[in-house]
């Protein structure tokens, strides 16, 4: 019999609805699992035991009264600590917000709760989501559940690790340059970055506002689809949240890929890739072909400029967004004689090395004399990158690619050289620059037993097709059923 904490989100919610399992039982199972594996994984910054049990009891009372508890009714989930939770500390993995307690829920938090989900805690991440390994968190170390000497990926490393280790049935992450998809690939779970504008950013701590998007991490595609349905849609509090209606993503999962044209961008299979990653992704492409998809070679010629473009735009936006941390109304304050000295010392003490590096890079790129050469230039190249995708999508309905050039690397391996760390994002960042949806599904393991991910990239607002491709692949394979032996 499957242990409660191993159930899919759908099955757990169905059991609550049928009154076979109570929400309190599910939450107790998740809390027990958290207590058992957290010393080795370190995914959580805050575990909300009392609040979760109270919320579960309320769900159970509603079910007992014959009410529908919602599509995620009674199921334990985790939330990345970039996303505000009313009354629950929200840190962004930073010393500057270590004691910050929001007075309101982010729209995605409120929508998860409205759908009946029970929040069991807040998940670790790179400070202000700036990183690819979660090693930039100022508040804790998260380890990959498949191998404790490896990183979980980042920046939503806590979310990937917690879902993989069975500590919650799904989690929310944020993805600015790959931060949902990289941890999903490194931890062997499903992750989805929705189209820019599909999900509200209200109450999500800002990193780079033209790129940030919230997305689910889950154990299979159908669970990710269910969470997306719960959080997507227009929000009066975020003018960038699209008014387009939210389709039923769950309804399209059985449609298969017969006749679907899938593009294979040649720039995404490059020298220096770990051979097992390339082999795993190519085998997955053959499997999709066997299932009836038509594979089309395509080209995204500006791919080689994506990292520079991304790190100029994202850091410029970050330097502006993070100007709000001044020690006045909330966050860390280091007292000083003058207001100016207070700003400078508070920010110096509150921000970690990578955050300072990105604020400096972004401030430099925006400063007088450099704006045109760096920031404006990057925005122009962003247009070229976007056009690459528009042209590719004239020949296919979705693209299939690797997620990262390697599987999970070792803790400490890339911290000394920021540029090497940035290269981990080479296959994910263009998707943010173009504002497209990107799904990650597990597609194999390397000889060290570490998961390999497959990325499916779709047209704007066509989450249905990427989920359909992911679901078809999942039905034909067993990779997503494997769990770390932790």
């Amino acid at each position: 019999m499957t242990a409660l904490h191993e159930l899919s989100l759908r099955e757990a919610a169905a059991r609550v609805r049928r009154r076979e399992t109570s929400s309190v039982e599910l939450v107790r199972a998740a809390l027990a699992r958290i207590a058992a594996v957290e010393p080795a994984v370190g995914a959580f910054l805050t575990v909300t035991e009392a609040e979760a049990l109270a919320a579960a009891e309320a769900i159970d009372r509603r079910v007992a009264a014959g009410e529908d508890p919602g599509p995620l009714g009674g199921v334990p989930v985790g939330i990345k600590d970039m996303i505000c939770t009313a009354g629950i500390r929200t840190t962004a993995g930073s010393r500057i917000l270590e004691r910050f307690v929001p007075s309101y829920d982010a729209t995605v938090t409120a929508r998860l709760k409205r759908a009946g989900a029970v929040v069991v805690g807040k998940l670790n991440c790179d400070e202000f989501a700036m990183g690819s390994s979660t090693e930039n968190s100022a508040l804790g170390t998260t380890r990959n559940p498949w191998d404790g000497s490896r990183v979980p990926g980042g920046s939503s490393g806590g979310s990937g690790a917690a879902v993989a280790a069975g500590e919650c049935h799904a989690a929310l992450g944020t993805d600015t340059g790959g931060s949902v998809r990289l941890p999903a690939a490194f931890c062997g779970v499903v992750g989805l970055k929705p189209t820019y504008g599909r999900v509200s950013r209200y109450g999500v701590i800002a990193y780079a506002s033209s790129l940030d998007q919230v997305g689910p991490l889950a154990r299979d595609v159908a669970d990710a689809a269910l969470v997306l349905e719960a959080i997507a849609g227009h929000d009066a509090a975020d003018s960038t949240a699209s008014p387009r209606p939210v389709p039923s993503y769950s309804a399209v999962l059985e449609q298969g890929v017969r006749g679907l044209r899938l593009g294979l961008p040649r720039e995404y299979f490059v020298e220096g890739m770990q051979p097992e990653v390339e082999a795993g992704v190519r085998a997955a492409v053959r499997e999709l072909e066997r299932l009836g998809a038509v594979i089309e070679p395509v080209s995204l010629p500006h791919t080689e400029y994506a990292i520079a473009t991304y790190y100029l735009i994202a850091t410029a936006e970050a330097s502006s967004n993070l100007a709000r941390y001044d020690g006045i109304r909330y966050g860390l304050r280091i007292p000083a004689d003058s207001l100016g000295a207070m700003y400078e010392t508070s920010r110096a003490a509150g921000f970690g090395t990578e955050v300072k590096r990105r604020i400096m890079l972004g401030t430099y790129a925006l400063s007088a004399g450099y704006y045109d050469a760096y920031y404006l230039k990057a925005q122009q190249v962003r247009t070229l990158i976007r056009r690459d995708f528009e042209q590719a999508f004239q020949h296919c309905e979705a693209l299939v690619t690797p997620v990262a050039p390697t599987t999970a690397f070792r803790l400490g391996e890339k911290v000394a050289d920021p540029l090497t760390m940035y290269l981990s994002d080479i296959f994910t960042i263009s998707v943010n620059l173009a504002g497209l949806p990107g799904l990650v599904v597990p597609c194999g393991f390397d000889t060290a037993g570490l998961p390999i991910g497959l990325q499916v990239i779709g047209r704007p607002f066509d989450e249905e097709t990427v989920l359909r491709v992911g679901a078809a692949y999942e039905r034909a394979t067993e990779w997503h059923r494997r769990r770390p032996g932790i």
Partner: protein
Amino acid sequence: MAITREEVWRVAALARLRLAPEEAERLAGDLDHILEAFARLSALDTRAVEPTAHVEDFGALLRPDSVENPPAGDEPLTNAPARDGRFFRVPKILE
């Protein structure tokens, strides 16, 4: 191109960051290394290319101009590093 120590101090002042001397030293090296790699962008001719600031395809969304926010009570002050009644306390800004 090399980033000078002076430029690092200038940018740090703009960003309101107090840097230790060894931190400034390291950042000068890091930024130099990163910007050198990013110089590849200058190889592209973008004179005829419009910049993309945002990918959205819909215009401004407006709601009826009616008051919806509940009046703020004590909530904005609950995270104040220092407060005095209903006010945030800050160092003197005028001499």
